[in-house]
């Protein structure tokens, strides 16, 4: 009775999603399969069960639109579950959940690196299965990511000679610092047209043109392919060369091209899973400041660009190399008087066993008169994965902000480097980033005589400490996670507070302890609470330092106060080996805004995120809203784009707030 009933439900329409979601369950163990199938049915999914991976694969190939999700055991005699996973990942765009009795980190890692969107342990519980529909939704949402490549183009459209070097480094972020932006752009451009063709310039090979002699990419064939690609390097791999290397009869360049395209998409999806990036660069600056940057010209100040990056070298050895670069940039621009300010933001280095360390620099120079720019730093949160995902990567987040300028006659150099180590359990490549934040800011403000903050963050293995010393009650914070807080207070016509806070808490109540404040965070242990909240409240001309000095606020909020223009520029960049996709998210704020946000709110409300979107100014570039949404939604296991994007264009006194504290889990569930 039940199956028919289920089918009936499925037929009644998909509007009752996830009821009737079509799941293919694969497990060689009859007991497990039976249990799994029953549990899935209980969740009102439409289940197809098979005990052979080969059959599963055949079903998938024959009816690729018949399934929404695949759940596969890992250990199967006829075909390794990972292989199935890999093939499914390559040939069809289906989320695959791995299932195993083996919860070793290594194995779980392997599953994730092969592209599993989740990894369940036996015995699987119905509670877990009730939630798996999220992967289907997420996959659907994340698809528009590719569209975001457009933004990249947009960003680069006006290649302003002045600032060309700036944005080429910002947005291209090529591993070689001297990378040729034009070349990069070309790559992206061609990638946008046809993922597979890149510099090869094969215009005749339209990837969407469906009919080619069908080649079944056997495991063996695929292995050769991967070997060839790895040999060439993912971004240098062109079909022709791959074909030569593979040396397989009857395989045409088109076959390879097509496969390469899928492979790239596959890698990208992987990274969407693997990378949790929240990189935000917020720079506040006068409008001309942005114009100066060229890249953002014409975009009305707001852009969001995200795209999951392909993993640099995804290879059979199963390590997940997912460099994540979280960028935080603080830009402090000239205050009150004409000053030359140099900002170097975002030096992020990823040490990677495979990938070269990436360096990322943004340099901005500007002379601005009377226009203030404030640095807003937003935080990046190394969004944490479930234990399963933990093992990724390393985000080294650095921000270097230097202001060569004078704030009220006091030379201030503000440098902040942040590093966000993730919590790895196992074979994490760690950022060996040593991070120093040494803001030395002297700003006599009304209520503060002095604010000197020295924030040092060093991320070593599992520890990163941030300490801040202030002349005020804030002193000596240490966090076991990345926290960067830079405060810059200036009592000139402007007050600038750039506060970055990023808190990652795991297992312990890091938030409360490290913040030294009554941070409401971390009620959920072992979930990452990633809060990067921006709640921008309008405080006109608020100059008092008390909010700054309030530990809670300081550590957990971003504050901006500006009498002039505020611009928020977020840039996130993710990088891979040779392939880098950068995203920049740009937001501008003008007006007097003070933002403060409580950091960690255990529960995320997606609504909040979207409502934040809604608060974007309508006249922000049309790109902005969809982009941001896609960015948000594309964050699969992460907060890819959980950027507190702060957008405000007008000088109105508008206040809006968003609380982006998140429990990782719930966020992913929401998304």
């Amino acid at each position, binding site marked *: 009775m*039940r199956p028919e009933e289920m089918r009936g439900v499925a037929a009644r329409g998909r509007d009752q999603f996830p009821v009737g979601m079509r799941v293919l369950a694969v497990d*060689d*163990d*009859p*007991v*497990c399969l*039976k*249990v*799994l199938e*029953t*549990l899935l*049915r*209980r969740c009102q999914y439409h289940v197809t069960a098979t005990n052979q991976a080969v059959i599963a694969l055949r079903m998938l190939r024959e009816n690729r639109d018949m399934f929404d999700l695949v759940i596969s*055991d890992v*250990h199967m005699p006829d075909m390794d579950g990972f292989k199935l996973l890999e093939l499914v990942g390559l040939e069809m765009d289906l989320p695959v959940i791995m299932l*195993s*009795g*083996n919860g070793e980190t290594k194995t779980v890692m392997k599953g994730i690196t092969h592209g599993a969107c989740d990894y369940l342990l*036996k*015995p*699987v*519980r*119905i509670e877990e299965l009730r939630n798996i529909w999220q992967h289907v939704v997420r996959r659907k949402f994340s698809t528009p990511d590719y569209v975001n490549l457009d933004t990249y183009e947009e960003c680069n459209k006006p290649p302003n000679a002045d600032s060309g070097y700036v944005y080429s480094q910002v947005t291209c972020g090529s591993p070689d610092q001297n990378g040729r932006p034009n070349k990069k752009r070309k790559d992206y451009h061609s990638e946008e047209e046809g993922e597979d063709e890149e510099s090869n310039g094969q215009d005749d090979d339209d990837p969407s043109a469906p009919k080619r002699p069908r080649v079944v990419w056997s495991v063996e064939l695929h292995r050769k392919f991967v070997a060839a690609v790895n040999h060439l390097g993912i971004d240098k791999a062109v079909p022709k060369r791959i074909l030569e290397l593979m040396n397989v009869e009857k395989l045409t360049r088109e076959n390879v091209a097509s496969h390469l395209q899928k492979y790239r998409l596959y890698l990208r999806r992987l990274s969407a899973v693997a990378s949790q990036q929240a990189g935000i660069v917020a720079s506040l600056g006068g409008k001309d400041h942005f114009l100066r940057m060229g890249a953002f010209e014409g975009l009305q100040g707001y852009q969001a660009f995200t795209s999951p990056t392909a993993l640099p070298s995804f290879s059979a050895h199963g390590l997940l190399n997912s460099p994540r670069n979280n960028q935080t940039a603080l830009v402090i621009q000239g205050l009150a008087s004409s000053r030359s300010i140099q900002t170097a933001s975002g030096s992020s280095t990823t040490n990677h066993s495979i990938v070269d360390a990436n360096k990322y620099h943004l340099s901005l120079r500007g002379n601005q008169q009377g226009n203030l720019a404030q640095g807003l730093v937003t935080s990046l949160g190394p969004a944490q994965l479930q234990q399963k995902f933990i093992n990724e990567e390393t985000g080294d987040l650095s921000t270097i902000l230097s202001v060569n300028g004078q704030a009220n006659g006091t030379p201030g150099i503000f440098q902040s480097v942040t590093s966000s180590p993730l919590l790895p359990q196992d074979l994490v490549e760690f950022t060996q980033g040593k991070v120093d934040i040494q803001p030395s800011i002297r700003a006599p403000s009304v209520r503060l005589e002095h604010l000197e903050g020295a924030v040092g963050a060093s991320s070593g293995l599992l520890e990163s400490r941030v300490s801040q010393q202030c002349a005020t009650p804030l002193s000596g914070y240490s966090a076991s996670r990345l926290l960067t807080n830079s405060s810059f207070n200036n009592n000139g016509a402007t007050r600038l507070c750039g506060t970055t806070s990023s808190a990652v808490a795991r297992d312990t109540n890091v938030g409360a302890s490290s913040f030294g404040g009554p941070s409401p965070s971390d009620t959920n242990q072992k979930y990452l609470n990633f809060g990067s909240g921006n709640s921008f409240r309008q405080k006109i001309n608020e100059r008092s330092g008390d909010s700054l000095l309030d530990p809670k606020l300081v550590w957990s909020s971003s504050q901006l106060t500006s009498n002039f223009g505020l611009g928020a520029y977020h840039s996130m960049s993710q990088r891979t080996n040779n392939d880098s996709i950068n995203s920049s998210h740009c937001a501008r704020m003008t007006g007097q805004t003070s933002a403060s946000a409580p950091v960690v709110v255990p529960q995320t409300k997606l609504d909040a995120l979207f409502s934040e979107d809604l608060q974007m100014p309508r006249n922000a570039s049309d790109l902005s809203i969809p982009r941001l949404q896609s960015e948000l939604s594309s964050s699969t296991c992460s907060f890819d784009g959980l950027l507190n994007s702060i957008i405000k264009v007008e000088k109105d006194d508008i206040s809006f707030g968003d609380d982006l504290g998140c429990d990782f889990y719930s966020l992913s569930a929401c998304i």
Partner: protein
Amino acid sequence: MAAAALKGQLNTLLSSMFSEGLVDEQFQQLRMLQEDGAPGFVAEVVTLFCDDADRIIAEIANLLEQPVVDFDKVDGSVHQLKGSSASVGAQKVKLSCMQFRQFYEAKSKDGCLMALSVVRNAFYEMRSNFQTMLQLEQQIQAYDP
């Protein structure tokens, strides 16, 4: 009523299985599923498990009899047994499988043989309990058309 007595017996059996650690929450969950409208489900799974585990144990025994033991295969089989016992909620069997692991990792044939006997005993105990349970259920069903 005989049926009530049988039900009482069944419940006693079930709770003793649980309290003795033979089965865990997973098994209870399966039973709850059954009560929620999947009749015969537990019986089916349990029967599957007994057959499957019996087969796997024989397989492992066979592997260990070889002059040169392929510990990887032993690994695979034990793993499968573990997965299946975990799925059915046969906790004791599952735990014995987990203990088995150290021996095949150490490539100790004697250790494996010992561990296998532990697994086997756990399984036999489990199976006899399951069989009793199934019989009781059948009898109850006979009373309760």
